[in-house]
């Protein structure tokens, strides 16, 4: 990909990242941290790509370990965040 395109995507994503969480109340810090944590579990996609083109046993072994870890990060992260948020209820009145 064009280096300039990558730099543009990166810079714009930084600003979006700053913007979307700038006003979050401390009430939600824990779920937000946990949710953001789950999002970087998408490295699973990267782990699958490298497992696909692994040509030696060493590469495949490391890639398989990466898939296990990334799956734990991603799936566990979303499940636990949902468990926390499920409990947040306002006054039912």
């Amino acid at each position: 990909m064009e280096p300039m395109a990558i730099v543009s995507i990166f810079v714009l994503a930084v600003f979006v990242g700053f913007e979307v969480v700038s006003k979050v109340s401390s009430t939600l810090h824990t779920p937000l941290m946990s949710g953001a944590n789950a999002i970087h579990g998408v490295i699973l996609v990267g782990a699958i790509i490298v497992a696909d083109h692994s040509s030696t046993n060493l590469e495949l072994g490391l890639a398989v370990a990466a898939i296990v870890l990334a799956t734990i990060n991603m799936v566990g992260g979303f499940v636990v965040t949902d468990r926390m948020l499920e409990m947040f209820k306002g006054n039912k009145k």
Partner: protein
Amino acid sequence: MSRTLYDLVGLAAGVAFILALKGLSHPKTARRGNLIGAFGATLATLVVFFYANPGSSLPLNNLGWILGAMVIGLLIGVPAARKVQMTQMPQLVALFNGVGGGAAALVAIVEYLHLGTEATTAEVIFTVFTVIVGCVSFSGSVITFLKLQELMTTRPVIFPAGRFIIAATLVSVIGVGAWVVSALGTTPLLILAGLSLLFGVLFVLPVGGADVPIVISLLNAFTGLTVAASGYVLDSVLLIIAGTLVGASGTILTRLMAEAMGRSLFGTLFGAFTAKPQDAAGSGEERPVRSGSPDDVAILLNYARRVVIVPGFGLAVAQAQHTVRELADLMISKGIDVAYGIHPVAGRMPGHMNVLLAEANVPYDQLAEMEEVNPTFGQTDVAIVIGANDVVNPAAQTSPGCPIYGMPILEVNHAANIIFLKRSMRPGFAGIENELLYDPKTMLLFGDAKASLTKVVSALKAL
């Protein structure tokens, strides 16, 4: 599947992550936000199975290994996430973050082995970055886990010449990183990974227990950046977007948390290097305290007009959230004005107490934030502090030498009466003596928080 379609799906997943973070910023939309994020991640993962990278064909090579590894990950991750107690949430977030960082480092290493001498300089630089930061995030998160699980001391671990050792490790990490970039060997890369793991350990050891959440948040942002760097090497727009989003939002979140604790980020991370070992909790002399019975507490509450409940981690440890809600409901039915005063860092990580009380069905609009509740303590008849200590310690405002100096506190010392429910006279997580316990208007009710509260509830019912 064509490259264009593949990239479009990746873009859609990136947008889902933005909506997820946006949703997570408001209580009403938070759950939906998280589900949108999970949907985006699932979509992104599925689509990889239908797109052959250049030089590859469908179905993916090693498909059995890939699916098997995912199943193992599911079998570990889902039960861990379902079974964890809410009080142990910070540890679990730390662990999940650590494995994510480890995964990113492994992906970078595999890709580096695969590319061999074909790697461009830019790719090698990004690989080195990912390996360093991913490994630091992994080992650092493991140490934070051990601290939070209290498998090791929660006090800052300071060893002689510690900062020189840490500085030397950092310099060698950077040096070996440069070596990898110039020499392109497998051995230098593995040495780099080892040194980075060591640096992660050394980096987190001197951080005190109360500051650990800030470190988790920072490591979370770090892991995000490694994912973005992997995205460059693997030519994946999705990974660049997702990683950068987490990196940026994680940085802001870290800063917000540090502000809530009245710390500069720099002070949190490097303060311990210059800190002297603290005075071992006070001078050790026995001083008189006023302790009371559950009946005394009930009488005090019965004649109060306004009561503020200040819950701390001890409340959650005693599993007394439901009992405290029962007490609050009873007082409300007697016409007493009741509020929960929630310190931003009550519990073991910012916002943790809100999660713990939500578990006990306390409506989140009864929870008053610190800035809201502090001006009202002057008109408060009774402040009940349950299993909290550091967040109400006036030393944070009055004694410049103490480790929590500068942290905003809940000013319960302005209330007419203060009741502390405590198990013992042991100081809080930060290990600092609390003068408030010896204040004449303070009454202490010793014992397990749940048992004590149950007695107070029945005494109050009888009045």
